[in-house]
């Protein structure tokens, strides 16, 4: 038990370090750049409306106050953190005066749902099929499957999502290709809404799964084909242990340990993938929000989305790490 606590403590420290460094990076990027955010926002505001000089001066003072610019950099950094901890990023300029944080919390469930379901489906299917392919190395079905997986795996998210969009949008329009739910349903806990949400989630999820599962398949196949030749597997076979037990408890369980580590390491990449997928399918999540915010020049919203997503990915990695001891008893016993 003590080993487990030690392990968790180490991982928690790591998570905090990732959050700290990531958010500090967002601060540095935004403050070390040659472009003044205040002037940028002012430029955008004054290009749309006809502002009097007095109004511009007043706005500049207000914006300086809001972004905390003008103070020494260290003081700005401290202020930045105190606001960050409170989750206060100021009002969004895109949807003034809604606080940026509200927009983020509204978009969060969509991205989270997409990310979690796509990751789970990808991980389970990829590893299961990979393990079977590694165990039955001469099976023709798995060989063909391996070639297909290899062919799809290296293609960027965007291209796969786009090909799906063309197939299901133009050639065979059976699935909704845009939005999070249909226009004619009322959001809430009713069946039409839920079924509409599920239907709209199929294509985005499918595209993330399609890109992701090949990597797990190939990795697991290689791991299992090594484990299968180990002495303890041969021994179990000779001792007449049931085949399903060998595959399930001996082979997969041992090969899963490095795969779980890999899951933690790739979560950041999967998140980037969902961001892009959301944009392609017009899904109302964090990715679409981030891109809209960049295009609208919404400073506080961009900061809010990137800080929240860095934190969320770090926490997700921590949760995956917590699962480790379930598979690997050595972590518990240490």
């Amino acid at each position, binding site marked *: 038990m003590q080993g487990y606590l030690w392990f968790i403590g180490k991982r928690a420290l*790591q998570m905090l*370090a*990732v959050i700290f*460094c*990531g958010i500090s*990076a*967002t601060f540095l*990027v*935004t403050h070390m*750049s*040659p*472009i003044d*955010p205040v002037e940028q926002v002012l430029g955008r505001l004054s290009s749309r409306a006809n502002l009097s000089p007095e109004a511009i001066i007043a706005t500049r003072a207000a914006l300086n106050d809001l972004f905390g610019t003008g103070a020494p950099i260290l003081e700005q950094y401290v202020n930045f953190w105190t606001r960050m901890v409170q989750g206060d990023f100021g009002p969004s300029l895109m949807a003034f005066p809604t606080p940026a944080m509200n927009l983020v919390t509204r978009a969060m469930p969509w991205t989270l749902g997409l990310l979690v379901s796509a990751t789970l489906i990808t991980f389970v299917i990829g590893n299961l099929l990979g393990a079977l392919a590694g165990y039955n190395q001469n099976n023709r079905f798995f060989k063909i499957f391996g070639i297909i997986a*290899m*062919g799809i*795996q*290296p*293609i*960027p*998210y*965007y*291209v796969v999502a*786009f*090909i799906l969009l*063309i197939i299901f949008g*133009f050639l065979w329009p059976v699935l909704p290709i845009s939005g999070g739910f249909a226009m004619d349903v009322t959001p809430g806990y009713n069946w039409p809404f839920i079924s509409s949400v599920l239907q709209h989630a199929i294509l985005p999820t499918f595209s993330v799964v399609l890109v992701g599962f090949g990597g797990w398949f*190939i990795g697991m196949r*290689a791991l299992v084909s*090594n484990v299968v030749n180990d002495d303890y597997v041969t021994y179990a076979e000779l001792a007449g242990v049931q085949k399903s037990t060998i595959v399930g408890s001996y082979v997969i369980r041992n090969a899963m340990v490095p795969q779980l580590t890999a899951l*933690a*390491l790739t*979560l*950041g*990449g999967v*998140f*980037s993938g969902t*961001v*892009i997928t959301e*944009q392609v399918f017009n899904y109302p999540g964090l990715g679409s929000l*981030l*891109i809209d915010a*960049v*295009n609208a020049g919404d400073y506080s919203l*961009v*900061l809010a*989305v*990137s800080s929240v*997503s*860095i934190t969320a*990915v*770090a926490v997700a*990695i921590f949760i995956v790490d917590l699962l480790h001891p379930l598979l690997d008893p050595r972590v518990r016993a240490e």
Partner: protein
Amino acid sequence: MFAVFRDLVRYNIEFAIGLILVTIVVVFSAASFFSPVDPSLIYMTIPDQPPSPQYWFGTNSRGQDMFWQLSAAFRNSLIFGLTVAVLSRIISIAVGLTSGYVGGWVDRVLMFINDIFVSVPIFPILVLFYFVLRNHMDSFTLALIMAAFGWPFDARLIRSVAVGLKHREFTRHAVFAGMSTRKVLLEEHLPYVMPIVFATFMNNMLWSIGLEVTLAVLGFTNINQPTIGTVLYWANSHSAMVVGTWWWIVIPVILIVMTFLGLFLLAVSMNEYIDPRSRLRRMGA
């Protein structure tokens, strides 16, 4: 070196396919050095012409000959990928070898930093950079930023090899003979990790070109410079699929798939070659 190459082509069908695909793409992109038109200019030909003997890949709605446009785009993207790969390889070799050989608290600190870099999601940070830099963001800046994030996976891999090398006989001989740490790392250990460096080189190129495509498609790079991503960006912004200029989308996508598949197959087959067990299995020995 040549014998390795010959063995790979002969015994490894994946390597052969990958090599053919990458060669086609490289030759195609090298053709842009002989391009008769400046790919950054628009309305140089009749817009929206389908592929024909005169315009092999058709022309787009911006009046550009797609053959030369794509050729320049692939050259720029490949150069971008190479830049990122070379820069991040330098960091990963330096960190990996030092961490593995020196060990102790240096190792722990470097690996802690390494793990932080692995976990930070790079996409929001790249978008943030674009948001702040806007038109100051050229492809070299982007390459520098990506190289700063592209090393940690491979540094860990190199470290694991370097830890093994540290306890080998020849390292001890070199140390007793009075070689400095820097010399031991560069002259004795570097050759051993070179195969890994080559294999990860391809993977890193895949990663960086893929990210560049993503950013460019969203319009988050310098969209006036032809790259794989900006070609798709312009095709999207002119609704190529709806208008019916399918060659503007289909041909680039085919070429992208060829590039990615080729690089991926090269990386995979090299990885396999490094592992002697799977190499022997494949060669039937």
